[in-house]
């Protein structure tokens, strides 16, 4: 069966809507950081080797004494020219710092989301087609346990079991693996297993419940009875007529959960010492490195908005009633 094509206008409209939302987010973020206590030059103030004149000159150079709106304006103009600012602490471009860290985070989050979806869809659909069966009960129990346990707890349990007791997996994520070829990838996979599993199982548990209830909603609908009356077989009834429609709200949920996934990733990165943007964010916050904090939070905001855009487009693609409006 063919799926219909999303109109180009729909996609363009959705992309245009992104611009004001990103601007709004950046204003809020910038204002929050400006209001927050802490000054990146605190350290210099207590450092006797730095004379006050130098400090004042540095502050003037980075425009720290300008009013907030002017600083925001400078930040925005620079950003539009591709300049994300300069880290006070590591003395590097913010964009360089972020680009060093972002791929790791994206791989961990991406892999965990894929894991979550790969678990949730078959388990949720199977549970819904046999409601209150043994399989359904077991799936429900595990789902409840899964999303009741916070990631920092399951992460520590996994470390205790697989790293300390069994010594199968490394519990510190290293970016500098001294190996080449297959071994290099193998080491990377080995050290990614636990962070991905922790995030993926947590997400998957919530998704299982959602997929199950979504399928249960659809399976009672009249057109499913119509599909059964066609004699196409129960398997096709479920895959073609039930799952396809039931997944539409699931797409929204996955997209809406992206902010939660990101915050979960920050915690997970701390536990496993994954050098992603989460750990970059935490260390910059502790060091009052505002340009980096601003950069990282804004990148996360962009990613969340982009995932929502993808969800909108998928939504229009999955549900023909939407894109035509």
């Amino acid at each position, binding site marked *: 069966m063919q799926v219909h094509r999303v109109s180009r206008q729909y996609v363009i409209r959705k992309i245009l809507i992104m611009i004001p939302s990103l601007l709004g987010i950046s204003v809020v973020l910038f204002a929050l950081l400006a209001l927050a206590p802490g000054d990146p030059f605190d350290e210099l103030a207590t450092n006797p080797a730095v004379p006050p004149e130098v400090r004042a000159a540095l502050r003037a150079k980075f425009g720290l004494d300008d009013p907030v709106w002017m600083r925001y304006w400078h930040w925005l103009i620079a950003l539009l020219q591709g300049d994300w600012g300069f880290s006070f602490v590591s003395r590097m471009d913010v964009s360089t710092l972020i680009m060093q860290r972002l791929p790791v985070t994206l791989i961990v989050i991406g892999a965990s989301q894929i894991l979550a979806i790969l678990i949730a869809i078959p388990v949720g659909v199977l549970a819904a087609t046999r409601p209150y069966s043994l399989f359904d009960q077991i799936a429900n129990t595990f789902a409840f346990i899964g999303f009741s346990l916070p990631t920092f707890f399951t992460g520590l349990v996994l470390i205790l079991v697989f790293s300390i007791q069994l010594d199968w997996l490394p519990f510190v994520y290293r970016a500098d693996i001294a190996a080449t070829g297959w071994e290099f990838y193998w080491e990377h996979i080995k050290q990614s297993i636990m962070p991905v599993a922790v995030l993926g199982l947590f997400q998957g548990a919530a998704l299982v419940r959602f997929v199950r209830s979504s399928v249960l909603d659809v399976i009672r609908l009249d057109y499913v009875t*119509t599909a059964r009356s066609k004699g196409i077989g129960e398997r096709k009834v479920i895959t073609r007529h039930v799952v396809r429609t039931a997944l539409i709200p699931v797409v929204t949920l996955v997209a809406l959960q992206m902010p939660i996934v990101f915050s979960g990733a920050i915690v997970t990165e701390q536990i496993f010492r994954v050098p992603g943007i989460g750990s970059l964010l935490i260390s910059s916050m502790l060091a009052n490195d505002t340009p980096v904090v601003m950069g990282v939070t804004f990148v996360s905001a962009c990613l969340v908005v982009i995932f929502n855009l993808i969800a909108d487009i998928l939504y229009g693609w999955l549900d023909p009633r939407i894109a035509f409006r």
Partner: protein
Amino acid sequence: MAEPLLDIRGLKTWFKTDDGMVRAVDGVDLHIDRGETLGVVGESGCGKTVTARSVLKLIDMPPGRFEAGQILWQGRDLIPLTMDEMDKIRAKEIAIIFQEPMTSLNPVYTVGDQIAEVIALHQKLSRKQAIAGAAEMLRLVEIPNPERRVHDYPHQFSGGMRQRVMIAMALSCQPKLLIADEPTTALDVTIQAQILELMQEMKERFGMAIMLITHAMGVVAETCQRVTVMYAGNVVEEASVGALFGDPRHPYTQGLIRSIPRVDRSAEKKQRLEAIAGTVPNLLDPPPGCRFAARCKFAMDICTQGLPPLKEVGPGHYVRCVL
């Protein structure tokens, strides 16, 4: 007498609920001959829809289950068949259309895809041929611009048009029996007439039989040859249309016929429409005797002592009443 196309004997379809067994269909006998239209009438909850869905085994099991009886399709009992075996009968030999055309089509596929799905499966055609077949079916049910409309989605059709699409889908494999479960209830009056007329045309064209489930006695009078009247999971009367309207024997049937609004009476003589007093008995625990006894004007002691059998009162005219 030739073997009937469909012969339902003593069918009991019960549903298990938290409160106990609901005896939705409790011993229904009815038959349909080749090429005839049988009306199945009765008020809401009398078991007519469950009977219809039982024929195609579209009842969710659990909670539903066949407690007793036979559904003989051309002499072969459908109840013991597996779902795979049923799938060879569904759509190909017995098709069904439902009450709600607005929700009976899948919103995410084009109507062409949904009709083609049936054609491709049962006639072993390629997708392209099946889509062409779907367009042909749409033309048959008088949908304008069928070649273009075949690529439209259900939400782009009105209620009446969707019911035409459902009919096109149901007839695409030329079934021998079409079960129409209140096909016009959700449509407005002018569209109802069009749909009934279309079904009549299709019946003549394909020579199929129709099991028309309805609660509108007017519809029955216009389209059916025979009628089965159901009440609270039982058949209470069965007769040809002429006999039923001319000489209704069961008090319930008499009540149904009297409750048809009539223009020539009500307005001029200020006569009120006659309703049947009381409500349908609880099917969790049906009364032992005649189920209509509690609402019947003529009820006697004997009525509550045992379910009266269907007895023949005229040629092909059966009634379940002691009177």
